[in-house]
């Protein structure tokens, strides 16, 4: 199944008509909170840890709100820049997650109709996350941005400081490597 992203909500890219600081916070959170959460959650092992990082990201966003210049970058690129810095700080303090247990996936969106199918989906997700944790940090970062943020390849390129075409070729290389990791694990 190709990734079309068609079922995802539209993102707010401008904040016209938003007046007070609280309104601006709400608009930013509403537009990007879900994507930022998925992004940090991709990197960390639990919902609690992700919530702590969300607090750091949005406190920093709020503190820096007056310095945001829409002419320099779209809000989503700016906020993801802050989220990446928060995550980098966090990773300096902690070892990278290498194992994901099923119990840590309580915030996983699951469409499985039965408890058994849900369990199977959680197992697949845990296996996938454990495999991504074996990738080098830059490759894991690319996957997190691509599959969590709802950003386009051009926007991901802006965040990473590379061209859109480079995003695509790197992504395919990383996906190939991830597939190999999962195949090896399945055989082993």
């Amino acid at each position, binding site marked *: *199944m*190709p*990734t*079309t*992203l*068609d079922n995802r909500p539209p993102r707010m890219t401008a904040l016209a008509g938003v007046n007070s600081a*609280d309104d601006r*916070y*709400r608009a930013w*959170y*509403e537009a990007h*909170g*879900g994507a930022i*959460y*998925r992004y940090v*959650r*991709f990197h960390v092992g639990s*919902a609690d840890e*992700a*919530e702590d990082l*969300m*607090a*750091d*990201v*949005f*406190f*920093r966003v*709020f*503190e*820096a709100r*007056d*310095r*945001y210049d829409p002419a320099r970058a779209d809000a989503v690129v*700016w906020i993801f*820049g*802050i989220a990446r*810095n928060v995550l980098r*700080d966090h990773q*300096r*303090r902690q070892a990278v997650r290498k194992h994901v247990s099923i119990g840590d996936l309580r*915030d*996983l*969106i699951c469409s499985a109709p039965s408890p058994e199918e849900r369990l199977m989906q959680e197992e*697949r*997700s845990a296996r*996938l*996350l454990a495999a991504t944790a074996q990738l080098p940090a830059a490759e894991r970062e690319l*996957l997190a941005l691509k*599959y*969590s943020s709802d950003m*386009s*390849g*051009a926007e991901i390129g802006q965040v990473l400081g590379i061209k859109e075409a480079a995003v*695509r070729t790197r*992504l*395919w290389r990383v*996906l*190939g490597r*991830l*597939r190999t990791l999962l195949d090896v694990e399945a055989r082993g």
Partner: protein
Amino acid sequence: MTRHGEQESPDHLREIEAELAALRFEPRSSLGPELLGRYRHGERAAPAAAPRIIRWARHHQRMLGLAAGLVVMTGLAARGVLGPLARATLVDHCCVDLDGQETEDDGLLVESIGGEEVRKLTVYEDLDGDGRYSPGDRITFTRRGAPTLAPPAGDGLKARRFCCVDYDGGGPADDGLLVVNGPGGGIVLAAIYETSRAATRGGHIQPLLR
């Protein structure tokens, strides 16, 4: 083509891509309002992690201490002089309006020894907005050693005090910051002082500037 008009992945990668796309986490619905409430009540982001060299130094503090002890002992043997071992700390505090431009985008880097002597003090403009010093930020004031005041010609100096932060890494958040802005903005003096150790001279409380 995808929604963003991008090229689709090759066939052999579609399955893994679909698995990744299906991996969706969702924050609890009360998280956004809760974070706003916490911010309103004064909670702030955790300070940025110290630079790698500082973390390395902290991690290897004991070994560094032993090595420093060895060096000092060698020095003592050669010179017969005793001196205390001191630990260097670097504190990065951002962001407030220090240059008088009415935007809270200035940060302060204080390099001190043993929570006492200020070796270097730097004010920077946090251009990338990451809430800490990074190589692209603009240095607007820097000094080494003791604070000195060399005001520009003309009137209009403006002194402001900020309190209280642990600027020198000495422990409690009891350090104040004195900033003197020039007539056209900019910083002509920046110094920290400990609020608990002000000296009384001529009936006036005078903080000891460092």
